[in-house]
């Protein structure tokens, strides 16, 4: 294959330097300390080569060099500059590249902070990076075409969204981070230094948890805001591929916490760190090998990487299995057990519960693979995940509620009950509120009660900690407050959303529940602005307009749909267009002219500039200008004189054009006035062949709690990360970490 030479060279250099670095570290491990300086330098050279390759790809994209196959496929002349970055990671090769870039940068930090464990940790870590380098050498983003096209194919319009510009790179930071606890774990087993790794790996594991969480939040928000699916989570294999490492990471950070504070989970943490990293590799395999091509809305097709991905997955699986099998038994464990009603036991229960949930989700995601050997391969839908995760969510909420009030020493039920009094009262009040609102399913009420209890008890504990000046140590509790909020948000927004499909006739108000919708007009595209639908909404005395978008992408001819979302304190109104039929939407008439739509004839007699005071005077004074149009409308033999108004507020440019009823059904309104040609544009709603707009209108109660809760979880995670970084540094400076 023909390659763009500088780029290909940079990747080959990266490969060579990575191998020399590995050799340097292996010298150190064999007892030759001179290898260290060499290895460190080689790593810097390696990272620079990767950086160079990435910079070259960015340059090729920004120069729109369509001789490069990758640039041709993901960029185009009309693609705005900031989306050139999105094009970087829009395809397989580029997304492996960004993953490698982050991994290499993190390696620089890891090298400097790993202390005594550096040679072994960096050795394992380099192996994980080498896997990516191999893939990129095999599937180079620098492959050149035989021809030199003048324009590229452009970027998938779904990806032309600001959230999509930053969601994938953040996800890949998370993927890159997940390799670090794994490297610490393997290095610890390899060197048989079982003590220090947990403290060193802890901040990295928390970092991975945080970054993956952030990326999932962004992906969910993008799906909600841009795709018009109506939801933020679809249990699609690609979504699960990022969720599973996040869950394993969640279990891992709790395991590391138990190890650091109680000396428990010393063996399990090796397995958990392995699972987190393996699940990233496995997810990559599932989504990039083409095995899910018929099962996922958005999985990549096979580029001939399937074999490589299986090879890399298998290599690390064998390596980890060998080390775990031979060394795990040598890890010392603590003999004595915690009392039953103690924080230790409950945390163990919580981690087991989460682990079970993760494994079930993993099994569901793997359904197409698992059933491949049966007669007909299949997959499981969202109902599977929702069903199995409901009991798990109940159990988790219950455990979360109790944990803040348990001590490591053990407690009596009576003492816990006393401490849970106020959170319990609060949770009961909230549950009663939910029951009064519309929650009647007893399981949902229990869910609401436990989630509220978890929220309240952790909130109380966070508050206590913060008041005692120990906010740094309250990260965990704060994160659990967020989990309670999220659970309530999920219950309300997914269990009690109301969706209706309505077909609106232009200009004719239609009632859906307590909401009245009017399709006002179709707004044609202007510059970058896409075509949109103007829909007026009247709801509980409030009036506003929403602008869901529906347009055909010029390049790919795809019909694109963007919902419009109106956020209220207690719910979101989600309006997504389903179909648009332009009909014959309007008449444009000069003075004295007559036009007709179907049986309706309209004569535009003249403008009325005195409709509400003199329009000229109002204009000069900067007040609202009102212009009327004198019309003669004939409909099925009935004739009427109508005078619809057009009000323009020059201060904010707002236009108010109330519709007037026609003599025999329908309505007329002025949708535009062209002063220079003296023409008026009339929208005739409900006559003959008006435009139709089919909409999906959904109310999603309390959905903001899902986002808000996630922010709280992340804030808690940040606090915990800061705390653990500080602790690891302290221990290291005291020489306590091996």
């Amino acid at each position, binding site marked *: 294959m023909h390659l763009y030479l500088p780029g290909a060279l940079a990747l080959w250099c990266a490969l060579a330097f990575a191998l020399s670095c590995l050799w340097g570290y292996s010298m150190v491990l064999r007892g030759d300390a001179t290898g260290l300086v060499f290895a460190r330098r080689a790593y810097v050279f390696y990272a620079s080569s990767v950086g160079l390759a990435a910079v070259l790809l960015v340059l090729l994209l920004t120069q729109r060099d369509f001789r490069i196959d990758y640039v041709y496929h993901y960029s185009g002349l009309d693609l705005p500059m900031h989306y050139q970055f999105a094009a970087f990671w829009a395809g397989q090769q580029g997304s492996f590249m960004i993953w490698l870039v982050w991994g290499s940068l993190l390696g620089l930090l890891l090298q400097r902070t790993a202390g005594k464990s550096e040679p072994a940790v960096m050795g394992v870590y380099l192996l994980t990076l080498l896997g990516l380098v191999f893939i990129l050498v095999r599937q180079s983003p620098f492959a050149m075409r035989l021809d030199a096209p003048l324009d590229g194919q452009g970027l998938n319009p779904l990806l032309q969204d600001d959230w999509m510009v930053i969601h994938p790179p953040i996800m890949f930071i998370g993927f890159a981070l997940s390799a670090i606890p794994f490297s610490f774990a393997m290095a610890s087993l390899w060197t048989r230094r079982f003590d220090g790794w947990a403290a060193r790996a802890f901040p990295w594991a928390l970092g991975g948890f945080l970054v993956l969480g952030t990326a999932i939040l962004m992906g969910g928000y993008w799906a909600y805001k841009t795709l018009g699916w109506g939801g933020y989570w679809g249990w699609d294999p690609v979504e699960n591929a990022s969720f599973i490492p996040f869950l394993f990471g969640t279990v891992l950070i709790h395991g590391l916490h138990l190890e650091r504070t109680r000396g428990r989970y010393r063996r399990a943490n090796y397995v958990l760190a392995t699972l987190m990293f393996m699940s990233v590799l496995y997810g990559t395999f599932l989504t990039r090998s083409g095995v899910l091509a018929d099962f996922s809305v958005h999985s990549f097709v096979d580029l001939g990487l399937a074999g490589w991905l299986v090879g890399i997955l298998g290599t690390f699986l064998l390596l980890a299995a060998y080390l775990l099998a031979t060394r795990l038994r040598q890890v010392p464990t603590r003999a004595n057990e915690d009392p039953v009603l103690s924080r230790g036991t409950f945390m163990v229960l919580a981690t087991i519960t989460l682990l079970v949930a993760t494994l079930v989700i993993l099994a569901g995601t793997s359904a197409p693979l698992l059933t491949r050997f049966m007669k007909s391969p299949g997959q499981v839908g969202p109902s599977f995940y929702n069903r199995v995760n409901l009991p798990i969510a109940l159990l988790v909420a219950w455990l979360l509620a109790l944990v803040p009030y348990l001590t490591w020493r053990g407690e009596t039920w009576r003492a816990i009950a006393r401490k849970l009094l106020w959170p319990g009262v609060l949770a009961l009040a909230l549950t009663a509120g939910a029951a009064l609102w519309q929650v009647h399913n007893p399981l949902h009420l229990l869910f609401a009660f436990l989630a509220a209890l978890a929220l309240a008890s952790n909130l109380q504990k966070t508050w206590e900690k913060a008041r005692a000046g120990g906010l740094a140590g309250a990260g965990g509790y704060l994160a659990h407050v967020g989990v309670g909020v999220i659970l309530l948000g999920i219950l309300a927004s997914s269990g009690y959303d109301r969706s209706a499909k309505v077909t609106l006739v232009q200009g004719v108000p239609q009632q859906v529940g307590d909401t009245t919708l009017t399709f006002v007009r179709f707004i044609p595209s202007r510059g970058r602005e896409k075509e949109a639908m103007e829909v007026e909404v009247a709801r509980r005395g409030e009036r506003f307009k929403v602008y869901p978008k529906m347009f055909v992408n010029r390049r790919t001819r795809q*019909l694109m749909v963007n919902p419009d979302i109106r956020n209220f304190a207690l719910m979101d109104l989600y309006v997504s267009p389903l179909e648009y039929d332009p009909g014959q939407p309007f008449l444009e008439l000069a003075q004295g002219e007559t036009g007709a739509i179907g049986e309706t004839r309209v004569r535009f007699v003249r403008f009325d500039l005195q409709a509400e005071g003199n329009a000229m005077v109002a204009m000069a004074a900067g007040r609202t200008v009102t212009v009327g149009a004198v019309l003669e409308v004939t409909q099925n033999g009935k004739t009427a004189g109508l005078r619809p108004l057009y009000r323009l507020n020059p201060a904010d440019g707002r236009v108010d054009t109330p519709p007037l009823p026609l003599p025999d059904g329908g309505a007329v309104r002025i949708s535009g006035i062209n002063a220079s040609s003296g023409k008026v544009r009339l929208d005739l709603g409900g006559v003959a062949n008006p435009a139709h707009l089919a909409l999906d209108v959904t109310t999603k109660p309390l959905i903001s709690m899902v986002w808000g809760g996630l922010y709280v979880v992340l804030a808690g995670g940040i606090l915990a990360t800061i705390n653990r970084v500080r602790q690891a540094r302290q221990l290291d400076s005291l020489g306590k970490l091996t």
Partner: protein
Amino acid sequence: MNRRLYLIGALVLLAFAGFSLASFRDTLTPYVSYQEARDANRMVQVAGALQKGSSAYEMANGSLLFTLRDPKTQDLVRVRYHGLRPANFEDAISIVAIGRYDPRAKEFAANKLLVKCPSKYQGTEVEKTYS
């Protein structure tokens, strides 16, 4: 005391494993041929190519109607889908519909569509299909 707790824990796990397995089997939607879909009284998924010009949107009840053709057997099935038309529906080279066959309406009532496009995510036209 502790042994009994372990036993309870094991039983709970076992019960949950059984519950998960049952849910897995209940919610699994196997890939089947159109004929199998007509006979199966359960959620299945069918794949095929969109018959050109067969798609229509019914404004009245808000549903998308189209015909899928099995590239191998040339069998046809009419599909009704309530919901948002996927962004790249018309360009699709392969459509997967998940739902169940409605024998009275003689239609496959889909509640989810997966659309495979030649240019989605990967610009190459050599799209692999697994069927």
